[in-house]
């Protein structure tokens, strides 16, 4: 069952569709796949204000942050607001809702006041919803809205004036660029959406809202550009999201893991980013971005292996240097996966592969090392992993100390003591640097993990083991899919047209078509051709 069909049935269960809250940013109705059964039980709101407040007090039993405030509004109508302290903008509540409602207009009857109130003519607010369902009101209060109950009317008004404590938009910390924009997503989803909307000022940018997590009620947005994104892809994303049943969503990886094609793969099948420009770029290529509230990392799907070898920087720098850097990255990708294994295999099984002088140097440095090469390699790699992990987790001030001590211990002392060879230190350091060159951290992690089995293969079977390891990895990679897109597109399957952004970074005036792999409906981009000199333009 697709989520659309489900949504239709769920919507009718909500009761009066006309009263359905219309509030989400792109004007799409809210859907709550999490609690359809709760909503179906929605009881009709009792007329009496006291009854309704009593019901809410019962629900919010022992919730000290819920505020109930009753006041007398214009024309003597009794009103109450219910909200949660701290997550709403109280100034707006005072000025635009309570104060405005309390203004007395002469000759106004209570009926007139209530009618104007519900017609949206009484209060100077920019948006409000009307609901008759108590449970809906309950849910919305928890989302940071203010519920206004008017005595004598079964309907209730919801004012979305939520205001959460949040961080200001700051510099990107994980995906640093030199030339591109610096802003990064924050934890607040509406701020994040603003950052995206600032870049894509188009009505074709669609954002659909969902809520996940039984207790967290985390807001999740599916964003895509209508007309560029393949229709089936959006449906597939929705379908996969609709399967999620979870207690809480505390980060985007909760969603990521739930929608993965192959849950057993070490390779990331969706990509996360903290950069709004990366999301905008992905949407323009016909992909889908999933925004998750309260995390600065948004998900992009589908992805390919090569996409994770691209950095945002590539598109801001000169395309020639960007291409060169991309090649360096591919080279170091191999190094980060294979270098320690190659070293172990060549020195223990195939020393004839090394030139005589190099071999003698290596043999000389290994002469006093008490361990076999494979043990040495493991020793060093594992200590390096430990240093890396410690440096990431340590508080910043201590982290510095750790890295210095680690470098000293492993780099100098171990070699001098004759525990490891100098050559191995070089190998491990290059490998370590190589794994940081991979722009996408999760891919780097996957390769870091894969390095160890390949090292064991190298230690046991030599080069043959490495080759077997590579073959097995490739078998896995070619069979992997990300939302139906083969992971190694455009090399397997071969899509030569898409190589313009894989083997090289083609200049923008050559990127005439969107990536073929997403099968967008409109493959042609707006393009302008190679820049010309004025005289050329005159002659052509």
């Amino acid at each position, binding site marked *: 069952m697709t989520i659309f069909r489900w949504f239709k049935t769920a919507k009718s269960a909500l009761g009066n569709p006309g009263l359905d809250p219309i509030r989400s940013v792109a004007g799409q109705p809210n859907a709550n796949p999490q609690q359809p059964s709760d909503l179906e039980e929605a009881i009709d709101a009792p007329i009496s204000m006291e009854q309704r407040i009593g019901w809410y007090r019962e629900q919010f039993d022992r919730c000290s942050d819920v505020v109930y405030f009753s006041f007398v509004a214009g024309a003597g109508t009794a009103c109450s607001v219910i909200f949660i302290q701290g997550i709403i903008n109280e100034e707006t509540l005072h000025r635009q809702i309570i104060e405005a409602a309390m203004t007395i207009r002469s000759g106004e009857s209570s009926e007139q006041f209530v009618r104007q109130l519900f017609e949206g003519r009484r209060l100077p607010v920019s948006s409000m919803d009307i609901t008759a369902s108590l449970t809906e009101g309950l849910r919305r209060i928890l989302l940071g809205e203010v519920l206004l109950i008017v005595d004598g009317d079964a309907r209730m008004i919801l004012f979305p004036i939520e205001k959460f404590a949040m961080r200001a938009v700051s510099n990107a910390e994980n995906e640093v660029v030199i030339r591109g924009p610096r802003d990064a997503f924050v934890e607040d989803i509406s701020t994040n959406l603003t950052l995206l909307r600032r870049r894509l000022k188009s009505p074709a940018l669609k954002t659909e809202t969902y809520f996940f997590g039984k207790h967290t009620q985390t807001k999740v947005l599916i964003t895509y550009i209508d007309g560029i994104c393949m229709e089936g892809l959006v449906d597939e994303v929705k379908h996969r999201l609709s399967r999620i049943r979870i207690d809480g969503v505390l980060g985007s990886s909760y969603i990521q893991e739930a929608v993965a094609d*192959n*849950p*057993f793969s070490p390779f990331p099948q969706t990509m996360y980013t903290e950069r709004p420009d990366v999301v905008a770029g992905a949407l323009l290529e016909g992909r889908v971005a999933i925004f998750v509230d309260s995390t600065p990392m948004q998900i992009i799907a589908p992805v390919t292996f090569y996409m994770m070898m691209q950095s945002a920087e590539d598109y801001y720098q000169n395309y020639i240097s960007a291409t060169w850097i991309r090649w360096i990255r591919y080279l170091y990708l191999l190094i980060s996966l294979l270098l320690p294994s190659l070293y172990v295999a060549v*020195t*223990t*099984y*195939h*020393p*004839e*592969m090394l030139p*005589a*002088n190099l*071999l*003698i*140097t*290596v*043999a*000389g*440095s*290994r*002469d*006093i*090392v008490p361990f*076999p*090469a494979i043990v040495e390699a493991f020793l060093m790699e594992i200590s390096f992993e430990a240093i890396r992990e410690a440096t990431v987790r340590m508080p910043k001030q201590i982290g510095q100390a750790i890295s210095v001590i680690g470098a000293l211990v492993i780099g100098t002392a171990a*070699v*001098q*003591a*004759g525990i490891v060879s*100098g050559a191995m230190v070089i190998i491990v350091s290059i490998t370590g640097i190589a794994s940081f060159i991979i722009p996408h951290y999760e891919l780097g992690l996957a390769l870091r993990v894969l390095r160890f089995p390949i090292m064991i293969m190298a*230690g*046991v*079977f*030599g080069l*043959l*083991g490495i080759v*077997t390891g590579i073959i*097995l990895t490739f*078998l896995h990679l070619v069979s992997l899919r990300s939302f139906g897109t083969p992971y190694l597109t455009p090399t397997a399957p071969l899509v030569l047209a898409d190589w313009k952004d894989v083997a090289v970074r083609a200049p923008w005036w050559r990127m005439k078509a969107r990536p073929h792999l997403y099968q967008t409906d409109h493959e042609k981009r707006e393009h302008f051709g190679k820049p010309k000199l004025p005289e050329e333009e005159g002659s052509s």
Partner: protein
Amino acid sequence: MSASSLSRIWKVIGCLAICLPLTGCWSRVEINDRAFATMMYVDKGEIEGNVKLALTFALPNRLIPSQGGGGGSGTQGNPYDVVSKEGKNVAIAYRLIQSDLSRKINWGQLRVIVIGEGLAKRGIQPLLEFLAREPDFHLKAYVFITEGETTHLEEAPAVFERLPSEVLREFAKQRTVINTSLKDLLVARYYGNDTIISMLVSPKKKMISEKNKTARWIGTGGAAIIRDGKMSTKMAVNEMRGGLWIMNELKDAVISIHSPTDGGEISYRVVKAATKIKPEVRKDKIVFHITSKAQGDLVSVDSDLNPSDPKQHELVARELSKEVERRIKAALDKTQKIGADSFILGRYLEWNYPKEWKQIKNNWDTIYENQVEFDIRASIEVKSQGTITKSPWERWAG
């Protein structure tokens, strides 16, 4: 991932795991448990019919500057050692050496094989037999024959390089001597076993680098013509150079000629030499057309010749070409006289006239001796005249 695809993966892994033991890659030997033989000396043994095998091993712990702690024990002594044993054949001698070593001998770095003159005269077949069967040898290992006994070379210090094998490798790389590799020897076996191997000399010399002690100096000197697997005669340096032309291995050479004008010495450096050989089967003989092309750069003029005069220039170029032709001819004549197709010209015949080759293959040596003629044409183009165009004294005179 469904259960069936999981089990399929296990099946694939199982298949691969079964295959792995078949490869014979279970030979894990740590690099510090290996002894790397860098050079091999083979000579006849003291007992008649025996073979003396000597191997030069690099000692990595002495090659690397000490690394503190328990590192290398300093720089005393040579960073290599020679271990030699005598046995009925090479394989037995090798086993004897191995049983005396704490580390396992690895042939992977063996780049130079030196054969003693005595053994070469007796025949190199038994050695080739051993080298060809062992898969670890580099086919690119260079082969030399030394004048006298190999022991002389073993004693020679490597003055310029770290290891003595490096000295010989560099000789071969410079292409001033014929560089015969193990592969060439194996190829020659299919063409009547005639080949040519360059020779080493090791004269005694007072060495300043070795604290003025008298020691052996490794040098090059001519080549040995191998006929039917046995060294039959020597070739002088000049003739060997002619051989380099035929084998298309010449990188650069300095050729001096007498000036056609007054007989003074003119030297040219010859570069970009390229030789083409084309056989032609006639009724009663086989003619090899050998065409050499090269470019000559003027090195020095010791005559009144004016290099910038086109006419004189042409004369010199012709003279130069004739000299090259003479050199090539000399080398070929030497081999033809003893009926050894050392330059393996037979393969050109096989390529161009496969049918005829099949018929004459078996008595190719006799045919080579009697029924083969050479048509040698060299054309040297003189291009550069150096930085100055006139000889310095010319200006003073005129």
